[in-house]
């Protein structure tokens, strides 16, 4: 597995799961926070990737 995007998804999933479990007690709230966090990680990764795309180095 060498796809950068797949590795980013996997990393975001692991971190979101742990943070959601740490920060919320109710499973439903954990799911909501974890989902939001995962989306934010992936969204920020894609946006930053495109912002860096024109740079020559």
């Amino acid at each position, binding site marked *: 597995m*060498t796809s*950068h995007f797949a590795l980013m998804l*996997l*990393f975001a999933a*692991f971190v979101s799961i*742990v943070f959601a*479990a*740490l920060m919320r007690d109710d499973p439903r709230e954990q799911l909501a926070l974890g989902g939001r966090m995962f989306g934010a990680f992936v969204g920020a990764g894609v946006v930053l990737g495109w912002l860096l795309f024109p740079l020559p180095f």
Partner: protein
Amino acid sequence: MRATAADRAQTTTNPYVISAVAWLVPGAGHLWLGRTQKGLIFLVTLPLMFATGLWLEGRLFPFQASEPLVALAAFADIGIGIPYVLAKALRLGNGNVVAATYEYANAFIIVAGLLNMLVALDAFDIAQGRK
């Protein structure tokens, strides 16, 4: 009102012992304190993240005083507890610098260790009755 398993653990167990156990075995502190759901999540997720890093050919960094950033990475690696010792015993984590996944793998290993430190601190807070 009946005390829960978590309440009983808070009154009878030294928080430092609980956080040490939580550091050695990811999720064990929460399981000990009766937070079974959280404990199981940490028990599965953190070693899996660490193992993924090893599988992707990441490196377990050595402690080198001359290289402060490497020493910091080594400190983070050790945060995962017993899985680190097992990986060392099995001679895993040599790292393959030319692998396309090398940098990602290091991020997985380092962040798994740092997250486990947070989990151990959370167990300490719960044991002290702060949460």
